[in-house]
């Protein structure tokens, strides 16, 4: 059983503050929490929403109906009222109405001795009362949130929360709440998870230009820089960012840049440089709807083909697309390892949905475990950076320690010097592309959930959660269906994927308009005909939506 609480209001009104507070408090109360956000591209105004979905078992994504809607403005009320579930309630900072409980939050905060800003605590207290929950975990969350401030701040906030609960006491327990169990895990977001995994993997230079929805990872790394010994630099543009990464990797440290589609477009030449100079550049590409500026704060999975083909010329690369938070942690590390093992760029593809997604999950290891850079201990005197080898990987040394390390964006000899010797050109290009074979052998096979079935819903990246929920719903209704989730989307080993899907009815479920992974699978010879459930309105899939569309009740 699960319950959905939606908080809506203008940007700047505390939608996120209230949502974050409830997310942490409800997790501490022993519930499974999944928080998702939708916001407009502005600092103030508009209608932003924050969903806190709570359950007595894992909750993997959002759903549309909300049992409890908390709204700060009339516009938000008008906008979101239709999404209230049958029998659901609305908590409104305004006039009461049918199914709408009036709660003047700022006034209540003042009555409790607080400021207008503490209206968020009032709202959270009221939500707790409507759910029939004890305020203990909310009090604890507020104490924790304001631990660094004067003790009176937490105390006043707690008084505000109590006031909110008191004002709706008559409706205590009016919203059905899943049964809390033992509190477990920690609340983390997708952005935080990727940032943490990169820091743990030993990233030492991060240079980026801020761009939604990638900024969360950048910000997290800046906050962790002192703890992990990372230089974090806000570059003047994305071109500088990727070229700094190229320079830093050449000189011997794992380095990364974070960006979104438009910024990544500017990085295309630098990506090609990393391919040519065989640099282990790592790029976090957090997707949003495009073309051009598109829908800056919304979500989408439109850049798979772009990521796979960006950069002029031909060179190997690997692209990982995590679904769960645990996978975001694992695959971020894998991206660094792959980039270093094969001395070529690797990318991590997430999107606004996963970046902002928060869940309480098993705690992640925060201990620094630097990856192997794959450097020669002592380079020989006749060291050559681009020596031709069987698997395409040349022994790697870094400048400063001994023999010269020479690299060039021009075609180069094994020495690294530029050349127009066309035989050498072919030899070097063959060498670089030979890495593809080894990289393909390391292809991360897609995973079935729960087990292979007649019908397959195939997806990648963040669609994992909603798709898995859809499979559960469909199977509960008697359908022989499963999910096949791709955590690596490039390169695809078609020969190994083909038998996995052969003889099954495949439907691609993707956050884009053209089924990009479907075409990659086709190109890899893994897939013939397929159907598609696609979404590209800027909002994430929900489990019930996929289930309904797969069941054929809604045309895809």
């Amino acid at each position, binding site marked *: 059983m699960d319950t959905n609480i939606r908080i809506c209001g203008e940007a700047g009104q505390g939608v996120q503050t209230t949502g974050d507070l409830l997310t942490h408090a409800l997790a501490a109360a022993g519930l499974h929490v999944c928080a998702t956000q939708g916001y407009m591209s502005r600092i103030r105004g508009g209608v932003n929403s924050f969903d806190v979905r709570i359950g007595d078992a894992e909750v993997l994504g959002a759903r549309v109906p909300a049992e409890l809607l908390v709204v700060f403005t009339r516009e938000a009320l008008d906008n979101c009222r239709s999404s209230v579930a049958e029998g659901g309630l609305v908590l409104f900072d305004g006039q009461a109405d049918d199914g709408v409980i009036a709660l003047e939050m700022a006034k209540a905060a003042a009555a409790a001795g607080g400021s207008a800003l503490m209206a968020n605590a009032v709202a959270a207290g009221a939500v707790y009362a409507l759910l029939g929950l004890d305020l203990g975990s909310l009090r604890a969350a507020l104490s924790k949130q304001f631990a660094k401030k004067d003790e009176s701040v937490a105390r006043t906030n707690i008084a505000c929360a109590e006031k909110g609960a008191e004002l709706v006491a008559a409706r205590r327990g009016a919203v059905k709440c899943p049964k809390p169990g033992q509190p477990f895990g920690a609340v983390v977001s997708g952005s935080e998870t990727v940032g943490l995994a990169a820091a743990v993997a030993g990233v030492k*230079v991060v*240079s980026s230009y801020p761009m939604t929805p990638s900024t969360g990872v950048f910000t997290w790394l800046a906050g962790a820089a002192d703890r992990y010994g990372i230089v974090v630099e806000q570059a003047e543009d994305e071109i500088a960012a990727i070229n700094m990464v*190229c*320079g830093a990797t050449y000189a011997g440290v794992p380095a990364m840049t974070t960006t979104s589609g438009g910024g990544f477009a500017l990085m295309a030449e*630098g990506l090609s440089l990393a391919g040519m*100079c065989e640099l282990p550049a790592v790029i976090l590409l957090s997707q949003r709807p495009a073309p051009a500026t598109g829908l800056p704060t919304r979500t989408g999975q439109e850049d798979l083909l772009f990521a796979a083909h960006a950069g002029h010329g031909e060179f190997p690369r690997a692209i990982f697309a995590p679904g769960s938070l645990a996978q975001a942690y694992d695959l971020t590390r894998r991206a660094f390892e792959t980039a270093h093992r094969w001395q070529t760029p690797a990318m991590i593809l997430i999107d606004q949905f996963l970046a902002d997604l928060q869940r309480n999950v098993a705690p992640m290891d925060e201990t620094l475990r630097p990856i192997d850079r794959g450097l020669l201990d002592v380079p020989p005197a006749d060291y050559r950076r681009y020596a031709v080898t069987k698997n395409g990987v040349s022994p790697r040394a870094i400048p400063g320690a001994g023999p010269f390390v020479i*690299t060039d964006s021009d075609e180069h000899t094994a020495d690294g*010097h530029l050349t127009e010797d066309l035989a050498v050109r072919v030899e070097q290009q063959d060498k670089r592309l030979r890495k593809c074979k080894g990289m393909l052998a390391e292809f991360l096979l897609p995973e079935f959930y729960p087990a292979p079935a007649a019908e397959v819903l195939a997806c990648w990246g963040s669609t994992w959660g909603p798709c898995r929920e859809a499979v559960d719903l469909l199977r509960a209704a008697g359908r022989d269906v499963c999910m096949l989730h791709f955590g690596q989307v490039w390169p695809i080993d078609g020969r190994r994927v083909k038998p996995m899907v052969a003889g099954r009815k495949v439907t691609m479920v993707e956050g884009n308009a053209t089924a990009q992974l479907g075409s990659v699978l086709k190109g890899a010879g893994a897939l013939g005909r397929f159907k598609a459930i696609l979404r590209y309105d800027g909002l994430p899939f929900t489990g019930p939506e996929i289930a309904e569309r797969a069941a054929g009740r809604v045309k895809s």
Partner: protein
Amino acid sequence: MSARKAEPVGRMNETAWCPGCGNHAILKTLDAAVAEAGLDRRKLMLVSGIGQAAKLPHYTDANVFNGLHGRALPAATGIKLANHELEVIITSGDGDMYGEGGNHFLHAIRRNIGVKCFVHDNQVYGLTKGQASPTSELGFVTKIQTHGVVSVPVSPLALAIVENATFVARSSAVVPEHLQKMMVAAIRHKGFALLDILQPCVTFNKVNTWQWYKQRVKELPAGYDPANRALALETALKWGEEIPIGIIYRAERKTFEEQQPALAKGPLALTYGK
């Protein structure tokens, strides 16, 4: 082939420069300056973009990062952050640094990152065969600018001074002794150093020739105070019958790398995993 492979990698034997090109003199002077400054060649890191000047790193004994057009500065910045014990010198042209890489130029100066930026400024594009560069003079006629250049040239030195650069100097390939002095001073400077090197292009610039520069470059007077920013700006803007050369502006400011807590324990590349 196998016999050759036993040898350490060093410089390329042949350059791609025209006979009489100013680059030859700059290369020779750089080698002399590196020796005079007592640099350990193993720690010498030459970074460049694309252009005829940007090929220089291949023609001497050093570590080389010959990257993308206009992107020498961010690449050099990344290298310096990964290993700040490397002596990072950029050798690139005016198009690379002031045109394609203009934005990076502005921001590298703000950072005061400890890289030395030697700009071969010949006021023309050589590698692409003779188009105007950002420093070409008004009226300079090319196959593209057929009626002559109508955009005013950039003033790189003035720009750098306005941007609070900490070392701003000018010299020329036509005065190698002076150039060597400037290179050594730039290498010894802590922080970002800009050295604009006026250089003839014998093939595509028939205006700003060896003779033209020789007649105009003039060393700063004895007693010139490079700490005087207003005077420096005035000096940097001087151009015409007399072109001042020397250290036009010098200031002290913390370097970018000095202000990175992560670098306190030593170069990231060398302390990695320790």
